[in-house]
């Protein structure tokens, strides 16, 4: 690994290029690219590296829309080459049809999503509503806390997605501007390291003249049900393969990427804050300072949203009396006016496990509003006084 000071977008573009090139001894790689703020630097980086000859066997499609960007990835992927792209916000919506195609085709495409608020109104700042729209169709979803996580999880995403026990695409998500345009020190993989880490892609159902078939044609109801059930069974294989990917990472690079869900001061905490992406970073910061004040507060970061790491979550929250879930997203019209998408998964997980923790939903950072330590301290303050939960509490209004 080499040390670099760079934005998440540069780090993502670089890692894509290196990982794509790692498949040069097999069928190569390719991407369809289309710019959208705040994703643009990713595709620019890929193109620059390509032009420098860093991608020896690959093709970049300068397409006319996000829909075609993913279309190109699908074409590349069904032919057995490694494929990746990146988008954001309304770009993802325009791409939607092909995003779903990619997972239903069982193609191991990796996509960086820069989480940006959906418009209108025109808002370029961070919110998770774009990627969360695609939570139900078989994409693996990782939400990163910092630029390093992005790099590590792009490498791991290829490893996991391309594994024959999985064969599902991955979204690796970072917050707009907060990471995408923010420089911080990062360890980037060298080409040799990526080559060593990633097995060559061998797509079992790639198109071959010798054994022609039609993929994606008509399926009768029972066929579709059966295939969907296959996906449902196999998406949970991600947990095992994720472990493999962590082990291998540690073995080769000497550090271990965190689990899908991670706790911090959680073991003896009375209050646990659950969050994701960069919010988790700030939460950690606040937890550390509150601990110094003796407040028994801890946190759980949910890094992987799909498949959802329920077992780990249950273990991590343990018997904490109160749980605050911070969502930078909101589903309108949800039951009990509790629209945070993460919190809904938390409710489901805890209820099924028979837990009786008090769970309160907090909506933070909508439309890219800054989530400051103060906001988080307020939340801790609020929940510590709370006797029973109520509807989602919107912070900062």
């Amino acid at each position, binding site marked *: 690994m080499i040390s670099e000071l760079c934005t998440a977008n540069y780090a993502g573009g670089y890692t894509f290029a290196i990982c794509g090139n790692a498949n040069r001894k097999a069928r190569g790689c390719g991407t369809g690219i289309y710019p959208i703020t705040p994703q643009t630097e990713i595709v620019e980086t890929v193109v620059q590296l390509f032009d420098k000859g860093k991608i020896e066997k690959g093709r970049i499609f300068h397409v006319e829309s996000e829909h075609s960007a993913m279309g190109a990835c*699908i074409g590349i992927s069904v032919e057995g080459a490694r494929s990746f792209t990146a988008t954001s916000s309304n770009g993802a919506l325009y791409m939607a049809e092909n995003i779903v195609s990619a997972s239903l085709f069982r193609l191991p495409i990796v996509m960086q999503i820069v989480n940006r608020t959906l418009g209108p109104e025109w808002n370029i700042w961070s919110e998770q509503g774009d990627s969360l729209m695609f939570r139900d169709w078989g994409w693996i979803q990782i939400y990163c806390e910092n630029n390093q996580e992005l790099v590590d999880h792009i490498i791991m995403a290829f490893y996991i997605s391309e594994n024959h026990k999985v064969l599902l695409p991955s979204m690796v998500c970072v917050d707009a501007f907060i990471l995408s345009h923010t420089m911080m020190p990062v360890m980037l993989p060298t080409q040799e390291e990526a080559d060593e880490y990633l097995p060559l892609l061998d797509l079992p159902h790639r198109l071959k003249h010798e054994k022609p078939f*039609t993929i994606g*044609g008509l399926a009768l109801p029972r066929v579709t049900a059966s295939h969907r059930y296959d996906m449902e069974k196999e998406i949970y294989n991600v947990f095992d393969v994720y472990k493999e990917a962590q082990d291998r990472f540690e073995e080769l690079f000497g550090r271990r990427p965190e689990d899908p869900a991670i706790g911090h001061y959680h073991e003896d905490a009375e209050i646990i804050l659950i969050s994701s992406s960069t919010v988790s970073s700030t939460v950690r910061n606040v937890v550390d300072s509150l601990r110094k004040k003796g407040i028994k507060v801890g946190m759980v970061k949910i890094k992987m949203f799909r498949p959802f790491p329920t077992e780990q979550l249950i273990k991590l929250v343990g018997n904490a009396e109160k749980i605050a879930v911070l969502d930078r997203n909101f589903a309108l019209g949800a039951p009990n006016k509790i629209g945070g998408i993460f919190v809904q998964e938390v409710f489901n997980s805890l209820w099924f496990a028979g837990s009786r923790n008090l769970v309160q939903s907090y909506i933070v950072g909508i439309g890219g509003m800054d989530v400051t330590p103060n906001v988080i301290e307020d939340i801790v303050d609020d929940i510590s006084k709370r006797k029973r939960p109520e509807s989602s509490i919107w912070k900062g209004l």
Partner: protein
Amino acid sequence: MNIENESEILRSKNTNCAGCGMSIALNFIGDALGNKVKMAIPACCAIVTPHSFPYSSYKVPVVASTFAASSVVAAGMKAVQQMNNEKGHVIAFAGDGGTFDIGMATISAAAERNEDIIYVCYDNEVYGNTGAQRSSATPVGAITSTTPHGKKEGKKDIMGIMIQHNIPYAATLSIGYPDDFIRKVKTAGKIQGFRFLHILSPCIPNWKIEPSYTVKIARLAVNTGVFPLYEVFNHKEYHITHKPAKIQPLQEYLKMQKRFSKIDDSMAAMLQGMIKENWEHLLKMEEMFPPAELTAKYN
């Protein structure tokens, strides 16, 4: 032509209607290119053709792309084949809906990038898969379920649009003229870059014709000037490949198809006018940009 008895691309006993023009087109493409072909097919009749999973009536690998995306999916496939030095053609095979309408932007972009694929539009002038709604390829006067009194607007000049992309090869093909058809597909097969083949594909249920008339109507379309046969190399060599000795009157063509049963005089005049204008335009283009080396090379 060395034609085996069976189609290289399409198995018999597929789900296509009896007398389907698209089936014939696929067979001719197979005759010209053999079976080293892969296809990306968007929503259209041709993606119902293979029947349901796990079966396939295609003898070649096929990806069912999203409606607008066949050309870019095909381009992705071709790129990987090229970087792996693999032979074989990748065809985007789409209907008029996927070409003239929803796929327009994608095709335009693929043409502009000069992707190395053969784009085939089998044009039955209607959204056939959904039961006959108008498309921008539907000719004036034709009844569809969304133009119950006949379409008021004329057909989009898709060839004109594609030619202006300066692609290396664009051609119209008729299943009524197999020699010309197969020669043009072979020509397309020898050229690199984005090749656009526009096939008029008579549709039994939606044109409301007898199944046996498919080929006859396709010929008549050529000889009435409804669908002139020509090819254009690199935007600069126009070659009309079939000049009818005498343009036949439109009446018989319209009479054979019940979809034109409500065409009134003004619509018929508009259709006839468009045909005449198109034909004269074509002659003029051929005069200004006459066949030269490229035409000679591939004819």
